């Protein structure tokens, strides 16, 4: 038994806010305090240290075809950031699109113990799982992308029964070994292939004649009915378009009270005021989130520097390609399932638009009052690489630091933003909510993100440093399932991490029309798309953790 003595514990799932007490760990689990005669094998004194659960990133692009395209596209990204092999760790490279190994090590070195890939195309699921299997240290899971696939749009267009749609969504989750469902630019990726360059929430798809609103509603209903813990994960229409805040608000309303998660909402909070017709609508968006308890969001914060944007939203990525820096890009279709766009991008602090994007993200963080419903992400690598999280945490926790950075950005953007008037500083407790307890709850991970009895012993110990960036960049200890994996911000023990999936109940009868469809139109047989439990276990994850879904009757 391992005892962590006298740590200052932040465990928001149990309302523990900086209470000093001991933690006991046995067989990879947090256990209750044993009697006085229990044998303690190892004692670590953590007086003055901050103790939290392992951090969970619920939206980070760490696997799937688009990352490999980004890697192939950006040799300079690799060349400029080589990581030599050491102590049982693989060599690797890459700043914005790091290799799988490097991704896992760097996440663990910041105290992250679970990461979720939000855009797995069902047809590409095998690749995604292989890549996630090669990402060591952290637990993984993926969200299957639906909403622009031909089969679904055909069903919707023909007015198929919601129960049939539920079965298809259930089958997709099951066959692709996914954790949740994501929709990207609902119907828009498909519309792009019919030469549409935008598709508004209530605009009919040029071919199927269904609207993004219908897509969102059908999928949100399906996810809810199947009992998947994580709400429909929505990358809304009109990403990055000035004035898209109206679409975003309408999308929230379109859920009609069903749970909905809006991802990288920073990119969806733009207005058209001012000389440059680009302004912040963070206040309206944040107010809506505060008002609607069925809505959660992650921010997708922009931080300055070179990165690469990877997205299934080929429509918007095509629109962005002229901003590519360096000047090269890829936009492609993937088996009529969805699309893929990779555009390298450099966010510049002296650029009006980029600077305002930065401020809008921070405004959203500070204006949404409930940290249980807003998550810390940069939409890695789209807003910034995940390695910038400690910097972001400092921006949230330290107003003086934030204001000093505000002085450095494009002056016009700084003047337009209300960021300076926001005095809120996140507390450690709130950081623990938004990076641990809340994502665990949102994903239905009952034994992660907290430090109660029976929880998986994913534990991070930080030195309490006034410089929060330094503090969160280099945890003193990180434990994964009870094993010490990181010491002083360096990996000391390489582990593999598990794969989380959901196992919804659905009617297997859906396989009959699906099989017919695959035989007729697709390049792969339906049986070969499906990934079995046995197969997914050979992809590299240490084990498969299935989550039962309690289906809700329609």
């Amino acid at each position, binding site marked *: 038994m391992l005892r962590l003595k006298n740590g200052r514990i932040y465990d928001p799932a149990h309302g523990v806010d900086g209470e000093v007490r001991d933690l006991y760990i046995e067989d990879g689990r947090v256990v209750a305090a044993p009697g006085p005669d229990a044998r303690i094998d190892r004692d670590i004194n953590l007086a003055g240290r901050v103790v939290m659960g392992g951090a969970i990133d619920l939206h980070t692009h760490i696997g799937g075809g688009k990352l490999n395209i980004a890697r*192939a596209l*950006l*040799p*300079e990204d*690799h*060349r400029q950031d080589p990581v*030599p*092999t*050491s102590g049982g760790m693989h*060599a690797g490279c890459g700043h914005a699109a790091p290799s799988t190994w490097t991704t896992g090590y760097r996440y663990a070195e910041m105290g992250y113990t679970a990461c979720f890939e939000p855009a797995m195309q069902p047809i590409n699921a095998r690749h995604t799982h292989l890549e996630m299997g090669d990402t060591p240290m952290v637990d993984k899971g993926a969200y299957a992308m639906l909403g622009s696939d031909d089969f679904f749009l055909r069903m919707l267009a023909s007015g198929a029964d919601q129960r049939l749609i539920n079965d298809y969504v259930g089958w997709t989750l099951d066959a692709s070994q996914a954790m949740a469902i994501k929709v990207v630019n609902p119907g828009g990726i498909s519309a792009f292939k019919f030469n549409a360059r935008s598709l508004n929430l209530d605009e009919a798809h040029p071919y199927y004649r269904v609207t993004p609103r219908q897509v969102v509603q059908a999928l949100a209903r399906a996810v809810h009915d199947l009992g998947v813990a994580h709400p429909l994960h929505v990358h809304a229409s009109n990403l990055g378009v000035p004035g898209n805040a109206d679409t975003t608000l309408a999308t929230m309303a379109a859920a009609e009270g069903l749970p909905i998660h809006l991802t990288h909402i920073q990119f969806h909070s733009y207005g058209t005021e001012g000389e440059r017709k680009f302004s912040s609508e963070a206040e309206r968006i944040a107010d809506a989130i505060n008002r609607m308890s069925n809505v959660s969001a992650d921010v997708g914060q922009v931080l300055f520097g070179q990165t690469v944007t990877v997205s299934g939203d080929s429509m918007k990525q095509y629109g962005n390609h002229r901003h590519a820096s360096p000047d*090269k890009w890829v936009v492609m279709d993937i088996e009529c399932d969805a699309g893929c766009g990779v555009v390298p991008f450099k966010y510049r602090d002296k650029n009006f638009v980029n600077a305002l994007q930065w401020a809008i993200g921070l405004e959203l963080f500070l204006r949404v009052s409930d940290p249980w419903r807003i998550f810390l992400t940069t939409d890695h690598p789209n807003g910034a690489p995940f390695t910038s999280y400690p910097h972001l945490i400092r921006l949230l926790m330290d107003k003086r630091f934030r204001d000093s950075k505000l002085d450095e950005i494009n002056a016009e953007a700084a003047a337009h933003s209300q960021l300076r008037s926001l005095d809120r500083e996140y507390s450690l407790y709130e950081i623990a909510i938004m990076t641990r307890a809340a994502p665990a709850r949102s994903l239905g991970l009952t034994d992660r993100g907290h430090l109660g009895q029976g929880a998986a012993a994913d534990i991070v110990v930080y030195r309490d440093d006034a410089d929060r960036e330094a503090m969160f960049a280099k945890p003193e200890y990180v434990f994964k399932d009870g094993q010490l994996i990181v010491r002083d911000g360096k990996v000391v023990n390489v582990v593999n991490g598990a794969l989380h999936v959901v196992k919804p109940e659905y009617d297997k009868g859906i396989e009959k029309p699906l099989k017919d469809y695959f035989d007729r139109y697709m390049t792969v047989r339906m049986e070969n798309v499906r990934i079995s439990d046995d197969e997914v276990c050979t992809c590299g994850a240490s084990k498969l953790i299935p989550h039962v879904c309690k289906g809700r009757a329609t």
Partner: protein
Amino acid sequence: MTTLSLRAVPNGRVDMTGVLPETLAERSADDIAKQIVHLAGSPLMLGDLFEVDVDETDMLVIRTDSDRLDCLGKGMNTGNVRIEGPAGHYAAQGMRGGELDIHGDAGDGAANGMTGGLLRIRGNAGDWLGAALIGDRTGMAGGVVAVEGNVGDRLGDRMRRGLILVRGQAGDACGARLLAGTLVVAGGCGTLPGAGLRRGSLILGRRPESIPLSFNDSGRVDLSYLGLLHRHAESFLPGLLPASTQAQRYMGDLAFGGKGEILVLA
């Protein structure tokens, strides 16, 4: 400045990135011995591989009888380096200034992505001399490379600017996809010279076995710039080019715009 003498043949390839005049200047021998390099991907100290001597000159000398030292002079900006022995792969990769003088052969990928400075190779060079860094779309973009011996295939592939002078022979596809710049091979070359050449000049001292079909024989021409080139080249490789300004000119590659040329001097 400093002399590094390789103690024994290393049991893997050594990445010498960072061992440059600009990083070693004014440092003690002990301090230099602690500089980190990588052997087969794992870090170790320079002093584990080399004898380090510091002297009064302003030259960095690397004594080696192994061709396993890669990335010599990589990213170098200034100063003088002499390699007494063979260089491994990627010598002068991304070099921006200064002079790297290799008294021996060089491996593959020398002067990849070079943008300035002078690289001299007294022996032979491998494939892809002056070509693009792996994954890049343009090759060498400045500076001068002078080779006494022969070079391998794909000499100057996608070269963008600068001057490469070769006294010996080149392998196949020399000057392939050349974008601009000047490539001189006195000893002739293998098949497919200038394949995919866009602009720039590929100057051959001997007529190759065949000129690709997508080049157009434009007859005998008198080009005064050959006189200038002759004078310029004398300072790097004396006697490389004849004083004559006459050449047989082949315009091409016509499949790629045809704005470049192969000049045969003989």
